[in-house]
């Protein structure tokens, strides 16, 4: 841990830059240089954020979105890791599914909403399943790659020392693939947020995406900015928080996504 004075000396520009921007914005929109209809003053936005938080609106919507992310991420993670491991270990499955994945993966997840809503009941369940689609492919894809990149020598050494079946899996294959699985999960979680917001915009009446879209439709511009701020905060928390968590819990696991 460095002395706070030195830390400040190194990072003062990074801190000063947003502060200056907010001050200029505040000034420009107070004096009418920026149209306050489109760019309300940051202090007004903060006040609206505060109001939304006080009357509970923000918490309900945030909780709804978080619950959806939780469900769809769990669904994607369990299925994605399982299918990914199976694909990594069993070649025919990999050969068979690779082309299917290649076609489906680049399709934006929102487009799956119609199909999903034909299969499962519309509403929350369709929303959660749609959100899980892209994360699933991402996690399965990275997990497969994680198993594939394990050094053959390591596997052969383990085989020579008599590791078979479950033992081989838990002591060699799983730890070997773990960095990739973790990266897949982190990216998948990030995608869950992106897709859940998009799907909420299209089809939900609750959740942060819905709040943002409804605020736009009734032109509550301040609420739009406030909601955007919360979504951004959630995004930062999910991506940087998870990276910090990994550094603390699994310090030996490099994040292969940091390139």
């Amino acid at each position, binding site marked *: 841990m460095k002395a706070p004075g030195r830390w400040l000396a190194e990072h003062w520009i990074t801190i000063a830059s947003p502060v200056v921007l907010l001050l200029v914005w505040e000034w420009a929109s107070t004096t009418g240089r920026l149209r306050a209809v489109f760019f309300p003053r940051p202090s007004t936005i903060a006040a609206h954020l505060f109001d939304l938080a006080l009357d509970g609106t923000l918490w309900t919507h945030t909780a709804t979105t978080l619950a959806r992310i939780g469900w769809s991420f769990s669904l994607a993670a369990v299925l994605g890791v399982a299918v990914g491991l199976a694909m990594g270990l069993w070649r025919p499955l990999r050969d*068979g599914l690779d082309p299917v994945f290649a076609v489906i993966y680049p*399709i*934006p997840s929102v*487009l799956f909403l119609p199909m999903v809503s034909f299969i499962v009941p519309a509403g929350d369940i369709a929303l959660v399943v749609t959100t899980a689609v892209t994360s699933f492919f991402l996690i399965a894809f990275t997990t497969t790659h994680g198993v594939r990149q394990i050094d053959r020598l390591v596997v052969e050494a383990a085989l020579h020392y008599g590791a078979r079946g479950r033992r081989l899996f838990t002591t060699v294959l799983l730890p070997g693939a773990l960095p990739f699985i973790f990266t897949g999960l982190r990216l998948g979680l990030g995608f869950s947020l992106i897709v859940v917001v998009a799907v909420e915009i299209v089809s939900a009446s609750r959740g942060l995406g819905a709040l943002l879209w409804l605020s736009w439709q009734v032109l509550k511009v301040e609420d739009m900015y406030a909601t955007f701020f919360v979504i951004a905060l959630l995004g930062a928390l999910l991506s940087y928080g998870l990276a910090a968590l990994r550094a603390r819990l699994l310090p030996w696991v490099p994040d292969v996504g940091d390139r």
Partner: protein
Amino acid sequence: MGVVVPVAVLVLWELCSRFAILSPRYFPAPTTIGWVLADRFAAGDLGSEMLVTLTRLAFAFALAAIPAVPLGLLMGMVKPVRDVVEPYLAFIFPVPKITLLPFLLIILGVGEPAFVLTGSSSAFFQIVISTLAGVQTMDPRLLDVGRNYGAHGPRLFWKVILPAALPAIFTGLRLGLGLALVTLVAVEFISAKSGLGHLVFRHWQMLSTPEMYAAFALVGALGLVLTRGLRALQARVLTWQEDIGV
């Protein structure tokens, strides 16, 4: 081997749909979808919708790449620039870019500029970050060698820094194009009145499912061609790059 499973899935789907094990109303047989696809292409409207999406994609990509690459390079080489810009990148990068759409809609009005710029924004941040990473992770020995041989200023940039960062820039452009497509199609689905994304939405609302699947398949094909094509291009153009990565 690679074709067996997709073909098997399609045949199974065909049979299930023909014998009404799957409701043909929601899951029309692949051959039906294929005929509709061919028919719509012949009529010209599917092609023109695809052209709309591709035109938007071209504008969105150009508007993102042209400022993003210089900014990323500048950030990589000049620390004060990096310090000033970094907090915004860190704040906006993890945000779903589709949330920028309502802001652009009120500022620019409902129309092409707002749609295209939303697509742009998702590519922009990806390209800046990849470019920056490319400059920052370059082997410092390359710089030393370049300097020792008397390269500095523009010469150092053109001969050493840019070639070293090029693979990362290309990766950024490739990922950015994919992101722009995904975001644009989502924007079309949500709020535009044309393009492949809107086609899926409209036929969903009208429950004309064969047309819906046809548009859906076209989006998939477009994504596949773009991602695969660019990967092949990258492997061919940047032969000094060892690993293309995911």
